[in-house]
């Protein structure tokens, strides 16, 4: 039943449109205009539902290139997840620890993690780059970036 890629995708999108439609039907009504807030969303939801069914029954006609693209080596999955985790940590601690420290740490460790071996250059770039941007934003343009635990 779920052999083709299109079938799996079709099913996912079907569920997506069903969820969106449910939300659309639960929108509050506003009595004073002819086309209420729910009309367009409902329309969109139904169109997507029909398209998902169409995709479900459409034949897979992938080129080799696309097939190759779907195959991600395990090592790359690890790398992607790693970067993802780095970004996640960065965002979470961004406002508490502050822009300069977090950015420097991020650029340094992320580049290292991805296989950059010239540690001196890496350290130099990862310190200068955030300090430069921070100075431009905060001192030159007076747009505040999170200062965090640093005194300036």
């Amino acid at each position, binding site marked *: 039943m779920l052999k083709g890629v299109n079938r799996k995708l079709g099913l996912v999108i079907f569920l997506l449109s069903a969820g969106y439609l449910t939300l659309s039907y639960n929108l509050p009504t506003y009595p004073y205009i002819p086309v209420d*807030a729910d009309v367009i969303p409902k329309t969109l939801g139904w169109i997507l539902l029909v398209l998902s069914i169409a995709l479900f029954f459409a034949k897979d006609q992938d080129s080799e290139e696309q097939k190759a693209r779907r195959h991600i080596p395990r090592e790359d999955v690890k790398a992607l997840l790693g970067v993802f985790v780095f970004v996640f940590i960065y965002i979470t601690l*961004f406002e508490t620890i502050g822009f300069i420290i977090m950015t420097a740490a991020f650029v340094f460790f992320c*580049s290292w993690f991805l296989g950059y071996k010239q540690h001196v250059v890496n350290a130099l770039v990862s310190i200068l780059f955030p300090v430069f941007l921070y100075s431009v934003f905060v001192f030159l343009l007076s747009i505040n970036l999170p200062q965090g635990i640093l005194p300036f």
Partner: protein
Amino acid sequence: MGAVEGILTGFEVALSLEGIMFVLLGVFVGTFIGMLPGLGPISAIAIMIPITYGMNPTLALVMMAGVYYGAVFGGSTSSILLNAPGISGTVATSFDGYPLAQKGQAGKALAIAAISSFVGGTISVVLLMIFAPVLASVAVSFGPPAYFALMLLGLTAIASLSEGSTIKALIAAIVGFMIATIGIDPQTGTGRFTFGSANLLDGIDFLVIALGLFAIAEVCFLVMNRRKKSVTNGKDIGSLKLSKQDAKEISGPAGRQSFLGFILGILPGAGATIASFISYITEKRIAKKPEEFGKGALKGIAAPEASNNAATSGSFVPLLSLGIPGSGTTAVMLGAFLVLGVQPGPMLMGDQPEIFWGIIASMYIGNIFLLILNLPLIPYISRILTVPRPLLISLVIMFSLIGVYAISFSTFDLYLLLAFGVLGFIMRIFAFPAPPFILAFILGGMMEQSFRQAMTSSGGNISVFFTNNISLVLIILSVISFAFPIIRNLRKKKAH
């Protein structure tokens, strides 16, 4: 005062030593800020407003105008080099600019962007100068039915924006449209699909989506190819050389799209972003080899760049001649006028011709300065692509994160950026095209609102879309534009 006298007064202002200095200062600051992540014309103007306080109004405004179009000019750099658009008007530029840069021709891509911006800027100033006094009526000629039809026309191009499965392109477009429905609905004040989060009430910012779908998704692929050497050997990556052939190729689109961009820029609410997209699509549809688009076509860089700069000058029409700010950026620009005690509007041209014409005349000089400032920088800026992959990846992620943070100052949007990055990656793996998604997002929201505004005014009578001349013409064009590729395909099949 007649128009000719006015123009002369304008040049007197613009060509005075002070005039030249302030234009130069404005465009320099503008391009610089425009190149920074997340900072576009809005922030650039807002930042400069306090500085102008107490200055000579004419000179200050000449400078502020320079900041505005300078920021638009500078915004394309990161689109082309990093696939990370710094401002929304240059998202379309990345479609072909980035692939071309990846082929090792970053210098060429940037040079084309700069030259096309210059062409767009200059042609539109000529139009502005000749037609500014009469264009005011054009700016207000579009009612809700006409806007609806215009957006519809833009959306009919979705199928032509992508190769491969039409179903997938349509799905991408519908999902993009759905994302546009998130937030408070202006016609009812109802919060839609916000899940009770105040952060979603204003909807999702266009740049969050663009940076996620393009920059972050691209980063994922860079991560997978992290061991490959960076783009070519970088020998002539910064080379600006354009062959005669290249010049010939871009002159058409740059010229045509300057006009289109200017007209779209005049319409309040349309603006540089929509103009750049519509110009890109138009060029692709009339191109002899549309399949080259998206893979580094020169025309695909020239069209949106000429258009977004022309639209910027166009947006001065309603601002100067009616006092109507047609976009967030011109609203801030209006603030810049007010703080100097100048009220733009129907009376400005008569009351203070030196300001009205001074700004316009200064744009010629500003555009020349921009070209002179930007071209020599290109070889140096292009070098960023020779940075080793792992480091480049970290820097692009950084750039995108700061870009989003500088818009909303909330970490919520940073998580959203990450989410859209993942979505963009998944879409690319499964061959769902991103351009229809982003196009439907920007046009869809406006299309829905205009549709419902028109329906409310007409008391629910749908004939309102066919009784208005502009909207009727645009709807007929939409039908043709929609049917044309289908008919052509059918014919091709028959021929086989």
